[in-house]
Every structure is written in C-alpha cells, then in structure tokens.
C-alpha cells in the first residue's frame, strides 16, 4: 500500500482543519500580493509604453513578427494542458493518487489558459482591433479556430475546477466564520445550497464526468490548433505534419513540471506534507519521465526526418539548430532542459520533493526557451533572402518592454493561482475524506 492514500491516522476534523487552514488573508499573503502587485505595475508601465508607441518598442520587425510574445503564448497554452492529463485522463482511469493534486493541476491549467489569451493581445500593436477577428475572421483561418478553442478551454477548465469543488465550498461556508462578509456571501452563493445529499453528489459526478470527457478533445485541439498556426504555413521548420502531437507531448512535459513546482510550493507553505506526500512527487516524477520520453521521441523525429532528406530550406534550418546560429540555445534546451533532467529523474533519490522541484524548474525554463526556438529561427530564414533592409532585421533580440510584458504574464498567473488558493482549499477535502473512509471500511 502506498502512502499517498493511507491517511487512516487522520481524523475528519483534523483534515478539515489542515486543509481549510490556508483559506485566510494572512500577513504573508498580503506581503506576497503586495510584491506581485508592485512588480506587475512596473511591468504594466512598459505595456503602457507599447500601447502609446506601438510595437516599435519591441524587437519585432517585418521578418520576426512573432517573437517572445508568441513563444510565451505557446508556452502558456502548453502548460495549461496538464489539467486535462491529470484530472481527466488519469482521473477517469481511476488513478487514485492524483486526487489530492488534481485541483492544483486545474488551478495551474486555468491560470495559464486565462493569461494565454491576454498574451495574444499584447502581441497586437492595436489591441482595439481584436474585434476584427470576430467581425472579419475567416472560418478557414487557424487563428479563428485557436480563439474558439482557447475561450472554450478556459470555460471548461473553470467549470472543472468549480463543480468538483462544490462540497468544499459548502464546507468553507459552514466552517469559516471568521472570514470577511463578502467572502461568506460568495461561498453561500457559489455553494449552490450544497447539502451533501446523494442526489447532489450524483449530479455533480455526472456533470464532472461530462466535463472530463469533453475536455480531452478540447485540450488536444487547443494545442494542436496552436501548432497549426505554424504548421499550416509553408515555412521550413514549421511545415511539419507531426507538429500537433509534437506540441501536445511537449505540453505535458511543461505542464508536469509546472504542477510539481506548484505542489512543492503549496506543500511547504500550506504545511500539507500529510496530503501532498513524497510519494506524490515520486509518481509525478515518473509521469514526467513518461511524457519526457514521448517528447524526446518527437524531437528526434522533428530533426532527423528533415535533416536526412535535407531539402535546401529544411537542411539550412536543421543546420542552424545543430551547429549554427541557434545551436547554443538548442543544445542547452535539448540536453540541459530535457535529456539530462529526464535521465536524472530516472533515479529514485532525484524524485524526492526538493530535487524533483529543482529539476522541474530547469525543465520549465527549458520548455520556455524551446518555444522560442520553435517560433523565431524559422522567421529568420525566409525562402527569399533578407536583402536591403535595416541591419537589425537580420536577427531578433527582445527589448526591455517585451521582456517586462512577458514577465507580467507570469506575475498574472502567479497572482491568479495565489488568490484562488487563498479563496478555496487547494486539496479536495471531500475526496481525501472519501478516500480515507473507503480505506477504513475495507
């Protein structure tokens, strides 16, 4: 019997107490939010500059019109996919150990998906023209498909976070008497009069199940369509039929890493060592090995197939990656951000919470730069040579406003997760109790 579900020694009251403890607005939280807010305001100043002066303040130009904004967007969409893998695929397969961390995965998914949409807007010099996508968008355009699936995915992720949380919201409503009035009111209306009746559980389970089924194709399409933004164009490095699965497999790597980091943070700050155990980290580490292996497999395909055939443009692209202009970043990302971490976590000691979290941070950073490698170099190698243009157009390096606005997107994600984790218990209380009763009755 593994230790993740053996909580027989905890009483129900103890569980309620432990898991509701984090729902408060303590000094630490205020300090942390204050820090995030100040940082966000600084970054937003740069966005104001961009609004005022247009995209000229960025390093983007006629050749590289998709820089770190779009790389970041791809990264965010990728990271948000983990919600589907953990709560839906593993949840429906009745993999019991994921239950305590499923909500964390959903939080990560929702936050990243919400901000992903905003990043697209930052890539527009005239955000007011976003409406044109809806007014003049063509149904043939992958951009229209992308907007449709991103919006849908945000809503499904939100519902999938909310509906299974109903019993816990009711618990907050009943047990938390020392929180502000507006918060009590919010719990009252959000809990939908939850009364732990059998019928309510039946309905909740039915709706959750529908969502879990629905989210699989939606999540697959959100990232497949994101990959199609690239793969549907005739450009070396993008023109690849395996871009969809390549992106999806990469998404799971980034998402797993993000969830591990979030788990570590919650476990230590919210003192949840009894609930998010070392065994959870061990299993998440194994899951990470699995998804990383699949991703390595796709990476090999992405390089070796065009590299072997070596038609002119593709050969140049592969050459730039392996030995040329982008080789340093390429090998750092592939070896340092994927292969070495994956080899390390094959060993059990490396799957302990702290080492695994450090490795996850490295993998997540690698995953971010990997998106830059996918997005940028292709644009610097158009079929027609770059001629008679300003010298700066033969390369791309992000400017300070660009970096600041990208940092802002990360701050927003952390803020969303922080606030949600302060409003609601991060570990599903009723599910932990259910598990425990189930075990005790055996």
């Amino acid at each position, binding site marked *: 019997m593994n230790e993740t579900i053996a909580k027989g020694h905890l009483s129900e009251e103890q569980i309620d107490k432990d898991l509701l403890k984090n729902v408060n607005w303590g000094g630490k939280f205020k300090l942390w939010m204050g820090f995030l807010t100040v940082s966000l305001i600084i970054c937003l100043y740069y966005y104001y500059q961009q609004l005022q002066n247009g995209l000229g303040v960025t390093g983007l130009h006629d050749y590289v019109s998709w820089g770190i904004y779009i790389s970041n967007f791809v990264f965010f969409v990728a990271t948000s996919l983990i919600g589907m893998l953990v709560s839906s695929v593993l949840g429906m397969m009745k993999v019991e150990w994921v239950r305590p961390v499923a909500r964390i995965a959903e939080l990560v998914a929702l936050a990243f998906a919400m901000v992903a949409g905003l990043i697209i807007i930052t890539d527009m010099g005239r955000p007011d023209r976003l409406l044109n996508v809806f007014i*003049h968008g063509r*149904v*043939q355009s992958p951009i229209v498909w992308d907007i449709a699936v991103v919006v849908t995915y945000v809503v499904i992720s939100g519902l999938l976070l909310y509906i299974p949380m109903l019993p816990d919201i009711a618990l907050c409503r009943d047990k938390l008497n020392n929180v502000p009035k507006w918060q009590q009111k919010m719990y009252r209306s959000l809990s939908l*009069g939850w*009364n732990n*009746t*059998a019928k*309510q559980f039946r309905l909740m389970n039915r709706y959750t199940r529908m969502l879990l089924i629905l989210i699989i194709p*939606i999540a697959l399409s959100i990232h497949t369509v994101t990959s199609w933004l690239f793969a549907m164009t005739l450009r070396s490095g993008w023109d690849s039929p395996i871009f969809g699965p390549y992106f999806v497999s990469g998404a799971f790597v980034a998402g797993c890493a993000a969830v591990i980091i979030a788990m570590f943070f919650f476990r230590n700050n919210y003192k949840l060592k009894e609930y998010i155990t070392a065994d959870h980290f061990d299993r998440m580490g194994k899951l990470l090995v699995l998804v990383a292996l699949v991703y390595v497999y796709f990476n090999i395909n992405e390089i070796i197939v065009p590299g072997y055939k070596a038609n002119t443009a593709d050969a140049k692209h592969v050459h730039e990656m392996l030995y040329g202009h982008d080789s340093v970043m390429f090998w750092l990302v592939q070896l340092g951000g994927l292969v070495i971490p994956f080899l390390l976590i094959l060993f059990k000691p490396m799957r302990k919470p702290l080492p695994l979290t450090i490795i996850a941070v490295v993998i997540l950073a690698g995953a971010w730069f990997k998106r830059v490698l996918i997005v940028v170099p292709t644009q610097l190698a158009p079929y027609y040579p770059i001629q008679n243009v300003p010298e700066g157009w033969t390369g791309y390096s992000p400017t300070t406003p660009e970096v600041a606005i990208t940092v802002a997107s990360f701050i927003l994600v952390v803020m969303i997760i922080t606030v949600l984790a302060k409003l609601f218990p991060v570990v599903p209380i009723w599910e932990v109790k259910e598990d425990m009763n189930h075990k005790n009755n055996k």
Partner: protein
Amino acid sequence: MKNNKGYHIIILFCLCFLAVANVNAQSDWQAPAEENEKLSPFLFDDDMVLEGRIAYENSCTSCHGTPGQDDFTPMSPPPGDPAAEQFQAQSDGSMFYKIKMGRGTMPKFEDAFADDELWNIVAYIRSFNEDYKQELPNMEGVVIPEYAMSLSFDENVDKLVVKVFAEELPQPEVSVSAYVMGTFGKHLLGKAQTNELGIAYVDVDPTLPGDEEGKVNVMVKATKEFARAKVEKHMVMAKPTERHSAIEGRHIWSTDRMAPIWLKITFFVSVFGVWFALLFIVFGLRNIKKAREEA
C-alpha cells in the same frame, strides 16, 4: 620566390601574346568593300534602338556582354565589347555584314534576323557611341512609296490577311512581319511576302489566348527597300479567355463566405456542440441547488 617570378613572367608573356593575337584576329576581319559601304535605309530612332536591344539581349549578350561594361565572355578570339572604340570604328555596313554572315565562333544571323532587324541591332550598338552620326544614303531622285495596309482575319483558314497598297495600287514583294503585342513585349506571329496582288498571309495559331472577346492587339510591319510602314489593330482572331477570380468557388483560400462547406460544418458543429454541452452543464447547476433537500 625566384621560381615564382619566372612563372609570372611566362604568364605575362603569354597574356601579351594572346592580346596581340586577338587584336589581330579581330582587326583581321574585314567586310568586303561593297558591304563595308552599305548604308542603313532606316533612320536609327528610339524605336529601332529598343527593338535592337531586345534582339541583342536575346542573341548577343551571352558572348558580347552588356555594351559598355566590358563583360564579354573570355574567348579566343575575344568577342569584344560593342561599345568599345575598336568596334565603333567600323562602318555600319561592316557591322551589318559581320552580324549577318558571322565567322568562326561568331554565328551567322542571316537566317535568324531579317535585314531590318539586323539594322535594329546596329542601331542599338550605335546608341552607345555619343560621337556617332548616322551616314544616310543619297536619296536624290529616289521616290519612297508610302504604304497603306489593311488587315483582316480569315477564320476559315486561320490566316491573317495583310494587303499592302501605295496610292491604291497593290504592292508586290513587300516583306511583312506580324506581331501580337503583349504587356511586356511582342510575339512574332510570322513573316511573309506580298504576292502580285499585294496580299500576304500569316498563319495564326488558333489556340492563341486573346481577351474575353478573343481580341488581340496585332502589329504589322511592311518593309521594302526604303519604304516602311507599321500598323496596329485590335482584331478578333484568338481564343477568348475566360477570366476567373483566384478565389472563385469554395476554397480554403477564399473569403469567409466562400469557405468550404465541410469546414464550416465541422467548425460550427464542433463549437456549437461543445458550447451546447457546456450550457447544459451550467443550467444543470440549478438542479444541484434544487436537490439540496433529500427526496
């Protein structure tokens, strides 16, 4: 080092020899005296220069390079740059003769170009010489007939019928060349000579693409000795072109309204299907509220 020096001297010597030999080779080539004195019956104008340039670029550039650029192909003997002094020192008749007859590696263009076209090339070569003054033949007592032309198309035999008159008399043995004018140049339909009735027939390819009505812009030139005439006319003698918009029909690349049906169905059915399910769940939340009392 020493060896190197010797080597250089040998190369230099060879080069000098080659240069001398080549100069000789070129200056050796003399047109027969009679040909040398031949004068162009046409006044070299911009029109001729332009046509000469097209002919030159198609047939001469590969060896002689661009005039004035000294970028002719290194051959032995060297073809030389037509804008160079040595070239321009020749008479018009000499140039005309050499282009027409050729020698050694210089091809013979007699069959490729009619006389007027050869003169076009001479006119083009002369356009690089600022000091050049065209020597015109003595025209005293020579009457140049003024040609008039009428064009028609015989659709039974797909032939362009060109009638050449001068003061209402049909003109025999006039060289006629017919062209179809395009946006970026002209396409030679064919060449013919008028018969004793002053009529020349030029074959027309019936698959030639015309405009929506099958019209093409035809240009016909008639030349005989000093007489010269040119006429342009829009004529219905080609295959009508049906113009289609590139985005006509339902395509991935068409407008939104003309998106492929399968795509529209797939997209909207998926989007509305998923949102229908989501709304079903959202409205279903009321049932959870209703179910708060155990039945």
